[in-house]
């Protein structure tokens, strides 16, 4: 199971774990409603839209009728999620069948959205002298981001296992990982040291609901437009300085006013809540001869590949390497698993090979797994060693007993010695006592 999904989902879990009061307050913001709706599983989305214009409660049975027989688990997952997020409120009627009602604030906001169409969170600033064009902004965001991530674990005395895993995630998952840390930390310390970032602007004890709400709202801004900083609240103004460091926004200052320009990273925030986040073009081609071609000029990509392969040479837009036993062993030693490497290669497969199944040659994936298995050749089983049996009969009886219990690991009938698994040691002892 790739780490990526778990993290992305964890963020929504975090939202779901907010107390009911705060959750209800979150839903007062129409953008949050929209972002939360988009993050739901497809069936849950469908249910919400379907009963959006119903006022009374709707029975769960009625909803389930829309699902084919093999989709029942999906139905349950959807309903669970909706209740967790307090979008559905369970109402039991007289017949003790569960019916559901939509959260009223949530419902009202979405209804308004459908009939009136959406609006932007805030007005853009009309007369800004010079705005960076989209390309510049993308490069800025990427630079800011990659500088951070690539050095994140280099500074630490030793690369941690978590650090490697972090590098193998895709950008959006990394983003949410950091933001999750950021939010949880804001509650406690108000100071977070992540690699080279020191995100210190946030005040101690800031309400995570405020932060979540601001971040989600940010994702509905238009990339590349300027927004006046004065429209933000005090907390938001502090937060945005940290976000600028991450490359989510670019801050600029005019003579009188200052403004922020959201980058793609920010506007993708709510997209990346769902799993369609990995809709990104890959760049890696792995051949059956273990050679690896990466169409990328990014230093970060090169560093990531170096984690588990031997980089042979680098052309302006191409990195060529080979997956070798040695390179993989270094990776395994650093706590990277074969599954992580394989899923990284698969997720970043170049579009030309991504269409093929499997996108990474089977002999390569098999070999990566085999090499990992090689390292685990020694299996450790806690066990007990018995010797000095009084007689051959006792020895043989003991062996038979251990065999019966499926706990015999080794026996030496000449010298009458036997090793049994630790878990049957007690039974063995009982048995030997009985023999006496």
């Amino acid at each position: 199971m790739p780490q990526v999904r778990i993290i992305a989902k964890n963020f929504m879990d975090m939202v779901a774990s907010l107390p009911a009061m705060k959750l209800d307050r979150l839903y007062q913001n129409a953008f949050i409603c929209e972002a939360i709706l988009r993050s739901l599983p497809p069936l849950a989305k469908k249910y919400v839209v379907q009963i959006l214009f119903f006022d009374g409660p709707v029975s769960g049975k009625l909803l389930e009728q829309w699902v084919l027989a093999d989709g029942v688990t999906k139905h349950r997952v959807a309903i669970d999620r909706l209740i967790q997020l307090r979008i559905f409120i369970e109402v039991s009627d007289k017949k003790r069948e569960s019916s559901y009602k939509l959260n009223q604030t949530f419902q009202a906001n979405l209804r308004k959205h459908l009939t009136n169409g959406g609006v932007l969170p805030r007005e853009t600033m009309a007369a800004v002298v010079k705005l960076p064009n989209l390309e510049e902004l993308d490069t800025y965001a990427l630079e800011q981001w990659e500088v951070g991530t690539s050095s994140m674990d280099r500074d630490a005395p030793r690369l941690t296992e978590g650090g490697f895993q972090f590098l193998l995630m895709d950008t959006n998952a990394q983003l949410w990982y950091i933001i999750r840390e950021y939010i949880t930390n804001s509650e406690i310390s108000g100071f977070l040291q992540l690699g080279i970032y020191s995100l210190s602007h946030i005040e101690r004890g800031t309400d995570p609901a405020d932060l979540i709400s601001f971040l989600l709202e940010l994702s509905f801004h238009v990339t590349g437009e300027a927004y006046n900083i004065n429209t933000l609240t005090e907390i938001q103004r502090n937060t945005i300085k940290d976000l600028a460091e991450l490359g989510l926004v670019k801050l600029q200052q005019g003579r009188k006013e200052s403004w922020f320009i959201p980058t793609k990273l920010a506007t993708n925030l709510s997209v990346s809540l769902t799993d369609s986040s990995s809709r990104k073009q890959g760049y890696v081609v792995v051949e059956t001869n273990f050679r690896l071609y990466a169409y990328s000029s990014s230093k970060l990509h090169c560093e990531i590949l170096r984690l588990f392969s031997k980089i042979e040479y680098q052309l302006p837009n191409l990195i060529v390497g080979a997956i070798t036993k040695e390179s993989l062993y270094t990776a395994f030693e650093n706590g990277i698993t074969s599954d992580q490497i394989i899923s990284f290669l698969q997720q970043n497969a170049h579009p030309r090979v991504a269409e093929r199944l499997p996108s990474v040659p089977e002999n390569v994936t098999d070999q990566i797994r085999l090499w990992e298995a090689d390292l685990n050749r020694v299996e450790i089983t806690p066990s007990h060693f018995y010797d000095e049996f009084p007689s051959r009969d006792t020895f043989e009886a003991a062996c038979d007993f251990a065999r019966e219990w499926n706990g015999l690991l080794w026996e030496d009938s000449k010298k009458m010695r036997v090793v049994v698994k630790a878990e049957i040691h007690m039974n063995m002892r009982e048995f030997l006592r009985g023999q006496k």
Partner: protein
Amino acid sequence: MTSVPSKLYSDDVSLVVVLLDTNPFFWTASSSLSFSQFLSHVLAFVNSILLLNQLNQVVVIASGYNTCDYIYDSSSDASQLGSEDGRMPSLYSNLLQKLEEFMIKDEKLGKEQSQRAIKSSLLSGALSMALCYIQRVFRSGPLHPQPRILCLQGSPDGPEQYVAVMNSIFSAQRSMVPIDSCYVGAHNSAFLQQASYITAGVYVKPQHLDGLFQYLTTVFATDLHSRSFIQLPRPAGVDFRASCFCHKTTIDMGYICSVCLSIFCNHHKKCSTCGSVFGQAQSDTSSTSDLKRKAPET
């Protein structure tokens, strides 16, 4: 192994091309649903598609009586504003303005036209345009959204469009683009039934038109991936009747030219399509007489 669990939780990014029937002859005659009511249902539906996924895209093509044209594209909206989002506010202004311009143009073009018996809208043109647009999306790279076409039609079928509509249907089938149809007219539309049947789309003729939005969101907002586990309306009978080449009427029995397969509603001496002269049935093949009954005297 890695892609399966993620697939369970995500829906496809969809591109919905909505073909909007703006045929004035139909809407003035329609008593159960006025055009403005219809439009408000459709706009809410378009909003709900865009709401469901940030990357979803909607294109609206109006099919009028005399012409058809693109009236809304959520992606070009965004490019004007410079991003994928922020499209919402412009939906109403852009779409309604374009729609109005379109209806005026449609009316102007119609001035000198003679009156016809069947007042159909130009479904074939709208379908052809939609398919061209979808091909462009396919060309755009491997990460394109999953396209589908939704026909919101009320006008009766125009038999003169038969060949063109069928050509579009087959092309859609080949590119695996489902054609959904929601028919708000009085009788079923054989064209749309066939289109949805052949392309594995959904055909619905709503019973209560005042709840049109509910029909639209429950059935047609479903993305292609979710369709594998959601119960959708099953096809009632499909009308496989053809329309003949000579009078453009819909027939359930007719004569087929053996050379070019043209359909005629009654017997001719010469095929008007390929020019073959129909001969007498030969005696040695009269065992299958039914195939060639009513061979003419030559």
